[in-house]
């Protein structure tokens, strides 16, 4: 049976990993700090996948990001998706060459669909994760790009139809409003959107404890739950959450 997945998202900015709240970043520590305090290998053992996003605001130095990515992925044996600031074929290649199994696209999905098509042709749909940031505007969830700064004035359903036509492999649906709050996922929007798409769905934004992860996993069409909450989940938070989810006999992979 195809299992559901638990994903951790690391938010990177200029050499430092961050806690994000409503897309405002709070510095936590660099790679050494992460290794030292959080024994990243142990945490990776509780994860199905890792996502690393470059959220640097001004200059998204992709070479430096790729370098950090290359170091980060050395001792983990799980799929890694990386993105943030991919604007050219070379940017994508750089991340793949530094250990990304998939790339995460956001802004260019809207601004440069031709490049997205080229990336799909070169690396296959299964390597392309489409990240969709949304926030309610006049009571309707609208899609934002450029690190959540630019409102596309497009409803989320129309946008996802458009992404399906671009042949991307997966969706990463992130609520800007819930991001980093720990209030739980935006279940209403997620339930509705999930019913209308044929793409595998990763949900993000709001998970603050293991009950939230379980709530997300219990939605039929949700394929993966993601959290970027360094404060709440790193340490023994994720191993404990996974243990409980396995003990409750939920549909999740096991290894020894």
């Amino acid at each position, binding site marked *: 049976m195809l299992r559901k997945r638990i994903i951790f998202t690391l938010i990177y900015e200029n050499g430092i990993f961050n806690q994000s709240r409503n897309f405002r970043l709070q510095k936590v520590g660099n790679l050494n700090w992460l290794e030292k305090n959080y024994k990243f290998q142990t945490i990776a053992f509780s994860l199905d996948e890792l996502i690393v996003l470059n959220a640097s605001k001004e200059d998204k130095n992709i070479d430096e990001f790729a370098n950090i990515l290359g170091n980060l992925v050395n001792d983990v044996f799980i799929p*890694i998706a990386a993105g943030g600031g991919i604007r050219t074929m070379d940017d994508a290649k750089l991340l793949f060459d530094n250990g990304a199994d998939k790339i995460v696209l956001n802004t260019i999905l809207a601004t440069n669909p031709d490049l997205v098509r080229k990336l799909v042709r070169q690396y296959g749909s299964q390597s392309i994760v489409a990240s969709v940031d949304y926030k309610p505007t006049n009571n309707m969830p609208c899609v934002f790009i450029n690190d959540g700064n630019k409102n596309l004035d497009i409803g989320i359903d129309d946008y996802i139809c458009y992404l399906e036509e671009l042949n991307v492999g997966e969706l990463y649906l992130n609520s800007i409003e819930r991001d980093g709050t720990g209030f739980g996922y935006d279940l209403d929007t997620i339930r509705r959107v999930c019913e209308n798409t044929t793409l595998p769905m990763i949900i993000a934004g709001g998970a603050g404890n293991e009950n939230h992860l379980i709530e997300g996993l219990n939605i039929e069409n949700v394929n993966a739950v993601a959290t970027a909450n360094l404060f709440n989940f790193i340490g023994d938070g994720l191993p404990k959450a996974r243990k409980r989810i396995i003990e409750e006999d939920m549909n999740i992979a096991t290894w020894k």
Partner: protein
Amino acid sequence: MTTVIIDYNSGNLRSAEKSFQLMSEELKLGQVKVSNKPEDVVNADRIVLPGVGAFGSAIKNLDEFNLRDTILEYAKIRQRPLLGICLGMQLMGTSSEEDGLNRGLSFVPVNASKIEVLDLKVPHVGFNQVDFPSDSILYKGLENLSDFYFTHSYKMESDMEINQAMCCYGDDFIASYEQGNIVGTQFHAELSQTNGLKLFENFLEYF
């Protein structure tokens, strides 16, 4: 002893490289080399044909690096161990519908076709359980129905006996095959935590 991971511009090779490095070190089974040079393939003790991307461009890249004949000679004539991963496994079949109809290396008489199951999401992505034959060498030491990480939109199916393990996503499809020195896995053992490392260990030790 050298394990060569073939680099033909097919996406991320780091995961496979570091997994094989770790297992080769533990088993003291020599070095791991990532290469696109035919002479390295000729001299290899084991080769790994990884692959993400599309079938058509992958086979074109193999030809561009003059690797097709080298691999044929290595695996078919000299019968040396070869492991194909994901697209690499499909490349060892007869053909694929991906990217137009393209011919493969034809080590196993199976072609690849698009996953098409009503109401199921494509690509098939995530960990899924693998049902393997009890006499399998590749899965030695693993429990049946162990989880491995898949991510693919094309699949292989066959009624022929190629010592296949099966996976189910809507329909049953081939998760792996073992034909003498030729081994293919649809899943990414290099992304499958300790289950995958065990499988690589078996490939290094028993093939």
